[in-house]
C-alpha cells in the first residue's frame, strides 16, 4: 500500500580503501542516482588519504572503519551487520567499491531487471573502464570444465556486442546487486577468497542455491580493474598469478566431491612442482613462485572445511544445473589461441618491423650455407678418414672415454679422482660435457669423440653461418664466415693434438654469440646462452675471463634487459664452484685455467706467431710441409703471413668503412682473444714429464679468429662491387692456410691415432675385470732427462677420469715420491726391495711405452726390468713392453664416489636442479616474445652487433 512497502529497500554499501580521488566521484554518482539507495553504509579500510572524511560527509547511515587489509567481502559483511533489521523479503544489497562510480540510472536499471524476474538472486552491471568509459572492463565470469576462471569480456570496446547476455555463472563484486536474504543464506563472500574469484564463488553458490545470476547491460558502473587491484592501484604479474592460482585451488577443494578432496589435496604440491616446470618451459619464470606458494598455502589453509560446510548447507540443486553455464573446453582453447595471436601481432613492434623489412636476408640453402656445410663436412671426413671404422681416438690430450654411460656420469661432481695418485675433490667441469657427449652414443661412449672429429668442421661452419647472418645483411658473407671459421687454424691445431675441450669450445662459440645476442629478448635464448657458456667455459677455461668481459659489455649495453641476461653465467658458476673453491683453498688459482683432458705440453709460440693463428709455434706446419717438397723452410713465415694477410687487412679495413662501430666491437673481441692467447702461453699450470705445461693458447686464438672473421665480413659487406673478388680471395687464403694442418693425419704430425678403446694392454684389462683396482706402473723414458712415472688403476684413467686438480698439483705428495723412488730403482739394476713396495702399492703390472731405438734410458730401463727376477716379462703390446708382478693380493680400493659423500650428493642435486631448470627454460617453445615497451627509433646506429636486427 505504501510505496515504501512496494518499493524494495536498497542498502548500498560503499567500501573505500585509500581511494579518495575516485571516491568523491563515486559518492557524487550515488547521490545522483535516479533511484537513490534507501540506506547508504560506508566502510573505510583504514585509508590514509582522507577517504574517511569524504565518507563522513556523504550522508551515509553508518560510516564504519575496518582494519587495513580487510577484504572487500569482509568489509561488506561488516557493513551488513550494521544495517537495520530485515523488514521484508525485497531487500537488496548494492555493493560498490570506491572506484565504482555508477551511471545515474544504474541502480534503477538493475532494479528494473530483478523486479521482473523473482528468481534472480544477483544482478551485475556492465563494468566500464574508468580511464576509457567506452571500453568494457569486465562483464560476467564463468569457469571452464576444469574450474579455471574465465572472464567473459576483457577490455573490449563497447559496441553493444555483449548486450544480449543475461544469464551467467558469475558477476563481479563491483556494482553487484544481491538479494539480502541470499547474502545471509550464503554467508557472504568466502573468507578463503580475499579478492579474485570471491564474487564468482559467491555467484556459483547462489546458482547452486537455486537463484539466477544475470547481467544487466544497461546498467553501467565504472571500474579501475580487477578485485586484486582494489586499494592497491597496481599489482605485479607474479602477485596476481599467485592470488588467482590460490583462489582456483581453494575453489577446487571446496567444490570437489568429498571422496576426491583427499586426492586433490595430495596432488596439490606435486602438481605445483610439475606446473612450475611447465612454467619454465613456457617461459613464465615469474609464475613459478606463485605456483608453489599457492600450492603450499592452499594445502595448509584452514578455510576449506568451513567453506565446504557452508556450500553444503546452502546448496539446493546439483552441479549439473550450472553445467550449461560453464565454458566448453573448445571455446576456452580458441579464446587462448586468439589471445596469443593478438599479442604476437599487435604488441610486438619488432614483428611489424620484420614484416615491413624489404631487404632480403641470406637463406641457408639459397645463399650457400647448406653447401658450405656439406663441402666442409666432406673435407672433414677426408681429413680424418683414418678414423673411419674406429671406435675411439687416443693420443695427444685424448684418451678413450669410460666404457659405460653410468661410469661417465660417475665422474662428474665431487668424489674420488682416480688419476695419478688420486685425490678426493671436484671433477673438471669438462667431465660433465664428456658425460653428455658420451651419452649421445650410449652404446660406445668413446665413439662420440670420433663423431666429433668428423663433424667438428661442418658444425663450426654451420654455427658461424648463422652467427654471421645475425651481424650482416650481405647474402654471401655468412658462407664466407662459415668457411673461415671451419678452417680456422686453432680448431685444426686442436684437432691434431686431441684437445677435445678446445674443439668443443670452438664449435660452440658462434652459437654462444648467437644465443647471447638473443638473450635480451628471449628466455629461451638466455638459457641456451647459459648452457653454451657453461660448456664453452668447461672446454676452454682460459677464455672465461675474455668471455666475462664480453658478458659485462652485454649487460651494460642492454641495461633494461638485465633480468634476462644477468643469469647467463649461473650454470657455469655452479659447474665450476667446487673446483674453484678447492683450487683457491690449495692456493693454486692459476690451476683453474688448465685445459681439461690428458696433460699435454704445447709448444711456445711467440707474439707474431700467435697473431697468425699459430698456437704451437710450428707456423701451422708450413715449414715441415715445405721442406718435404724441397722448398727451404725460410719461405714458410712469408707464405703464412701472406695467407693470413687478406683476413687481417680486411678486419682492420673495417675500421675505415661505414659501420665502424660494429667493427670496433669485433676487433675488441679479437684483441681480447689475442691477449688471452699471449697470456696463456705465459701461465705454467703444471708439467708433462720434464716439459712445462702451459695453458693452450689455441682457445684464445679461437676468440681472436672470431673477432677477425666478424670484422672482415663487416668490411667486405661494405665494399660494394668488390665483394666477389675480395671474398673469394679471403676464402681461398683461409683454406690454403689450413692445408698442412688438414694433412697432419697423413704426414704423421698429428698426435692422435685410432684406438681400440683400451688404455692399457689387453692382459691388464682382463685382470682389471676381476680386480678393478689392479695397479699398473707406467714408466716411460724421457731420453737424457730421466724417466717419467705414473700409476694407473684398473682399466686405466680414461679421458673423463682426468682431473686438472691432479695435473696442476704444485708439489708431489707422499705417494708420488714413493712412485718416483720405485721407478728410479726399477730403471736401473738396484738392490731395492721391489716386491715389498710393489705389493704395498698393489702394482701387478709394469708398462714401458715404446721409445726411439737410440734411447739409452729406454734401453737401460728395459734391461733392468728384464733382468729383474721378481718380474715376469709378458712381451710387447700395442702400448709398450709389459711385465707382470705376481703380487699376493691387490688391496681393494675404497674411495668415495660422487654420491658417496653427503657433500657430493647435495652438489649433484644442486647441479641437477640448476641445469634441469636451464634446459627447460632453453627449450624454445611456449611463451611469447616480449613486447617492446618503447621501440627505439629504427634508424639509430648501434654500438654492438645485435642492433643490426631485432628479429
Amino acid at each position, binding site marked *: 500500500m505504501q510505496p515504501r512497502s512496494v518499493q524494495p529497500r536498497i542498502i548500498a554499501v560503499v567500501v573505500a580503501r585509500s581511494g579518495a580521488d575516485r571516491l568523491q566521484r563515486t559518492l557524487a554518482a550515488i547521490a545522483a542516482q535516479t533511484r537513490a539507495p534507501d540506506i547508504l553504509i560506508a566502510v573505510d579500510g583504514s585509508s590514509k588519504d582522507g577517504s574517511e572524511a569524504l565518507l563522513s560527509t556523504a550522508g551515509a547511515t553508518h560510516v564504519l572503519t575496518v582494519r587495513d587489509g580487510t577484504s572487500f567481502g569482509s568489509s561488506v559483511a561488516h557493513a551488513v551487520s550494521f544495517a537495520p533489521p530485515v523488514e521484508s523479503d525485497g531487500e537488496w544489497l548494492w555493493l560498490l567499491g570506491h572506484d565504482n562510480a555508477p551511471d545515474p540510472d544504474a541502480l534503477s536499471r538493475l532494479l528494473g531487471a530483478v523486479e521482473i524476474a523473482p528468481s534472480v538472486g544477483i544482478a551485475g552491471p556492465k563494468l566500464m573502464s574508468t580511464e576509457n568509459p567506452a571500453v568494457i572492463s569486465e562483464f560476467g565470469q564463468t569457469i571452464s570444465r576444469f574450474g579455471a576462471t574465465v572472464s567473459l569480456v576483457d577490455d573490449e570496446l563497447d559496441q553493444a556486442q555483449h548486450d544480449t547476455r543475461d544469464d551467467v555463472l558469475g558477476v563481479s563484486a563491483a556494482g553487484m546487486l544481491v538479494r539480502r536474504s541470499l547474502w545471509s543464506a550464503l554467508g557472504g563472500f568466502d573468507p578463503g577468497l580475499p579478492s579474485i574469484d570471491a564474487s564468482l564463488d559467491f555467484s556459483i553458490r547462489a546458482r547452486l542455491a537455486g537463484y539466477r545470476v544475470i547481467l544487466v547491460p544497461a546498467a553501467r558502473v565504472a571500474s579501475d580493474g580487477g578485485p586484486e587491484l582494489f586499494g592497491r592501484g597496481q599489482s605485479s604479474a607474479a602477485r596476481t598469478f599467485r592470488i588467482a592460482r590460490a583462489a582456483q585451488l581453494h575453489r577446487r577443494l571446496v567444490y570437489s566431491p568429498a571422496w576426491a578432496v583427499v586426492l586433490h589435496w595430495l596432488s596439490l604440491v606435486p602438481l605445483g612442482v610439475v606446473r612450475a616446470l611447465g612454467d619454465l618451459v613456457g617461459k613464465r619464470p615469474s609464475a613459478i613462485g606463485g605456483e608453489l606458494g599457492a600450492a603450499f598455502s592452499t594445502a595448509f589453509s584452514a578455510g576449506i572445511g568451513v567453506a565446504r560446510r557452508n556450500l553444503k548447507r546452502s546448496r539446493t540443486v546439483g552441479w549439473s544445473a550450472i553445467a550449461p553455464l560453464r565454458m566448453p573446453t573448445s571455446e576456452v582453447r580458441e579464446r587462448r589461441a586468439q589471445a596469443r595471436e593478438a599479442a604476437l601481432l599487435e604488441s610486438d613492434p619488432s614483428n611489424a618491423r620484420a614484416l615491413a623489412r624489404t631487404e632480403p636476408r641470406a637463406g641457408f640453402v639459397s645463399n650457400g650455407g647448406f653447401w658450405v656445410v656439406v663441402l666442409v663436412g666432406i673435407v672433414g671426413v677426408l681429413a680424418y678418414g683414418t678414423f673411419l671404422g674406429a671406435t675411439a681416438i687416443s693420443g695427444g690430450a685424448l684418451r678413450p672415454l669410460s666404457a659405460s654411460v653410468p661410469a661417465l656420469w660417475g665422474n662428474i661432481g665431487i668424489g674420488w679422482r682416480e688419476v695419478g695418485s688420486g685425490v678426493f675433490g671436484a671433477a673438471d667441469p669438462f667431465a660433465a660435457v664428456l658425460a653428455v657427449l658420451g651419452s649421445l652414443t650410449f652404446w660406445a661412449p668413446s665413439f662420440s669423440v670420433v663423431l666429433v672429429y668428423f663433424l667438428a668442421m661442418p658444425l663450426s661452419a654451420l654455427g658461424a653461418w648463422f652467427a654471421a647472418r645475425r651481424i650482416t645483411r650481405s647474402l654471401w658473407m655468412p658462407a664466407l664466415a662459415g668457411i673461415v671459421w671451419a678452417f680456422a687454424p686453432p680448431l685444426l691445431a686442436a684437432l691434431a693434438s686431441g684437445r677435445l675441450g678446445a674443439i668443443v669450445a670452438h664449435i660452440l662459440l658462434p652459437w654462444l654469440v648467437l644465443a647471447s645476442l638473443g638473450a635480451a629478448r628471449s628466455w629461451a635464448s638466455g638459457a641456451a646462452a647459459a648452457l653454451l657458456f657453461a660448456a664453452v667455459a668447461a672446454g676452454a677455461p682460459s677464455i672465461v675471463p675474455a668471455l666475462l668481459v664480453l658478458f659485462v659489455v652485454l649487460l651494460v649495453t642492454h641495461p633494461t634487459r638485465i633480468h634476462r641476461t644477468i643469469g647467463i653465467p649461473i650454470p657455469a658458476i655452479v659447474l665450476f664452484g667446487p673446483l674453484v673453491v678447492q683450487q683457491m683453498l690449495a692456493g693454486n688459482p692459476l690451476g683453474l685455467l688448465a685445459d681439461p683432458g690428458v696433460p699435454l705440453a704445447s709448444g711456445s709460440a711467440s707474439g707474431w706467431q700467435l697473431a697468425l693463428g699459430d698456437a704451437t709455434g710450428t707456423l701451422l706446419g708450413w715449414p715441415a710441409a715445405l721442406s718435404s717438397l724441397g722448398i727451404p723452410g725460410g719461405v714458410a713465415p712469408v707464405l703464412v703471413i701472406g695467407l693470413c694477410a687478406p683476413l687481417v687487412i680486411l678486419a682492420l679495413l673495417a675500421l675505415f668503412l661505414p659501420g665502424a662501430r660494429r667493427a670496433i666491437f669485433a676487433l675488441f673481441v679479437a684483441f681480447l682473444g689475442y691477449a688471452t692467447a699471449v697470456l696463456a702461453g705465459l701461465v705454467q699450470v703444471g708439467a708433462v714429464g*720434464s716439459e712445462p705445461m702451459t695453458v693452450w693458447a689455441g682457445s684464445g686464438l679461437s676468440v681472436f679468429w672470431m673477432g677477425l672473421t666478424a670484422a672482415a665480413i663487416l668490411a667486405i659487406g661494405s665494399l660494394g662491387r668488390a665483394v666477389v673478388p675480395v671474398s673469394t680471395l679471403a676464402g681461398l687464403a683461409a683454406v690454403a692456410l689450413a692445408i698442412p694442418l688438414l694433412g697432419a693425419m697423413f704426414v704423421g704430425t698429428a698426435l692422435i691415432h685410432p684406438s681400440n678403446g683400451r688404455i692399457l694392454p689387453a692382459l691388464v684389462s682382463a685382470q682389471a675385470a676381476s680386480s678393478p683396482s689392479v695397479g699398473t706402473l707406467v714408466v716411460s723414458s724421457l731420453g737424457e732427462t730421466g724417466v717419467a712415472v705414473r700409476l694407473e688403476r684398473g682399466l686405466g684413467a680414461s679421458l673423463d677420469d682426468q682431473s686438472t686438480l691432479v695435473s696442476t698439483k704444485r708439489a708431489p705428495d707422499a705417494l708420488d715420491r714413493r712412485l718416483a723412488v720405485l721407478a728410479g730403482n726399477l730403471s736401473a739394476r738396484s738392490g731395492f726391495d721391489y716386491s715389498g713396495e710393489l705389493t704395498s702399492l698393489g702394482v701387478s703390472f709394469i708398462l714401458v711405452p715404446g721409445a726411439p731405438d737410440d734411447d739409452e734410458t729406454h734401453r737401460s730401463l728395459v*734391461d733392468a726390468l728384464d733382468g729383474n*727376477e721378481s718380474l715376469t716379462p709378458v712381451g710387447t703390446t700395442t702400448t709398450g713392453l709389459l711385465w707382470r708382478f705376481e703380487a699376493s693380493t691387490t688391496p681393494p680400493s675404497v674411495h668415495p664416489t660422487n654420491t658417496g659423500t653427503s657433500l657430493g650428493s647435495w652438489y649433484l642435486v644442486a647441479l641437477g636442479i640448476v641445469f634441469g631448470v636451464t634446459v627447460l627454460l632453453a627449450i624454445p617453445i611456449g611463451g611469447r616474445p616480449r613486447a617492446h615497451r618503447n621501440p627505439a627509433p629504427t634508424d639509430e646506429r648501434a654500438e654492438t652487433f645485435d642492433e643490426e636486427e631485432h628479429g
Partner: protein
Amino acid sequence: MAERESKALSGRSIAIAGARGVVGLIGVGIAVASVAAASLLPLPTVGTGPGSVVVTPVAATQQRICAGPVLRLGSDTGQQATTANSIGRAEVTRAATVGTPSLENLDATQNEKNVPPQRLLLEPGETGEEPGILAGSQSQFVSADEFVGFAASECAAPSSDSWLVGGSTLTGRTTLLALTNPSKVSSTVNLTVYSEKGTVAASGTDGIIVPPGGQRVFSLAAFAPDIASPVVHVVSTGGQVTATLQQSILRTLTPGGVDVFGVGTRPSRLTVIPGVVTVGHQSVEAASSLGGYGDLVGTLRVLVPGTGSTDVTVSAIPEGASGAASSSTLTLEGGIVTDFPLGDFPDGTWTLTVASERPAVVGARSSTVTLAGDPEKSLASGAPPVVVSTDFAWFVGAPELDGRALVSIAPGPSPRLHLVNTGTESTSVAIDPLSGGGTTVTIDAGAAVAVPVAPATSYTLSGMTSVRASVSYLGDGRLAGFVVSPPGRASQPVTVFHQYG
C-alpha cells in the same frame, strides 16, 4: 637554402670520413702495438714448472763378466765336435775404486770339466757412500795344437743389445760365439749375422735360450759358413748377456794366432777405435804374399745396418802428432759388411775414426808376424819368407769416457794405454795406479797419445772429457787389445718426473 644544406652535408661527411680515418689509424696502431709488445717484450712466466725427484737407485752388486779361457769345439781328441772345451786358464786382473771385488766362477758351463768363465762382483758400500767403479780384464797366452797366440779382453757388463765386429769363417778360420748369462733369469737371444753378402739367413739364430748363470758357445760357421767378414748382432730379452767372439787361425797346419774380443760401441755416427797397432808392415807385406796369409794385412770392417747407401769418412790419427790425420770417403751399401785393407799404413799406433751419415759399427784387425831372418833382405832376394810366428788382434770402437773411469791391465807383454781426445777442447787425464803415484797427460783436441802401463795393475783415469781409451799388448808373436768402458750406469742417479694422467 639547398646550397647551405649541401654544404653542411658535405662538411658533415668530411668530418665523418675524417673521424673514420682517425679511428682506423688508432685501431691499426693498437693492433701493431699489441703484436709488437707480445713479440718483443720479455714477458714473465708464472706458475709452477716440472716437478721432479732425483732418485739414486739403491746400490746393487756390480758385476763384470770375464770371457774365460780360450775354447775349442770338441775335445782334444776331436770328439764331441759340438761341445766347447776350455784350453788352459786366463789370468784376471781386477780392481775397484771402493771396496774389494770378488771373483767367482759362473755356475754352469756346457761341460762340467771345463774351466768356467768368471765374474767379478763388487758389493755395494754403505748407503750414501759414493758407489765404487769396478773393472777387470783377462789375458791368456795359449800354445796348444792349433791354438797359439795371445788374447786379452775386458771383463764386460752384460747387455741386451750387442754388436760384435770381427772374425771369419773361411777355411782355417774358426770363430766361436760365446753367450754368457750371469743373471738370475733365463735369457732369450736372437742373433743376426751380417756378411759381405748381406744378412745371412740361417736357422737356429732365433730363440737361443741361455740359462741363468750359464754359457752357450756356438761356432759361427754353423750359422754362416764361408764368410770372410761377419758382424754379429746379439739381442737378448730376459736376462742380459755378455757376448764374445773368439777367432783362431790355422793356416794349413800352422797356427796363425788367437784373439778373444768383446763388444764395441753400438751403431753410431762416429766410431773411434783407439790404439790400432801396426807393426812390422814390411814383414806383413812380405808374408802376406804367401798363400793363405792374405789376412795378415790390417783391415777395417764397417757395417751400416739398414738399407740404402751411406757416405762413410775414415780417418787415421797417428799417436803423438796432432791433427796430422789422413782421411778418405767411401760410399757403402747398407746391410753389407765391407772390409778395407789397411796395408799401406806405416808402423805405429793409429786411432781410426769412422764418421757416417747413418750409424755404423766398426772393427779393425791388425797382425804381427815374425819372419826368419831380416825381412828387408828376404824381400830384396825375392825368396819366399819363412814365417816363424803370427798373431792378430781385433780392435773395436771405444765408448766415450767423461770424468772418471777405471782400467785394469791384465798381464801381458808391454801393455800401453791409448787415449784419444775426440772433443773440441784439449783435456787432461790423470792416470793414477791404485797403488799410488801417477801421471797426468794433456791431450789436444783430436789428438791421441799412448802411455806405457804396468801389467797386473789397475789405474784410475780422471778429469777427462770426451776421451776414448784402449789398452794394447805387443810382443813377439803376441798382439792383443781391449777398450776401456765407462763406469756402469747402475749407480747413477735418475731424475724421475711425475705424470698425472
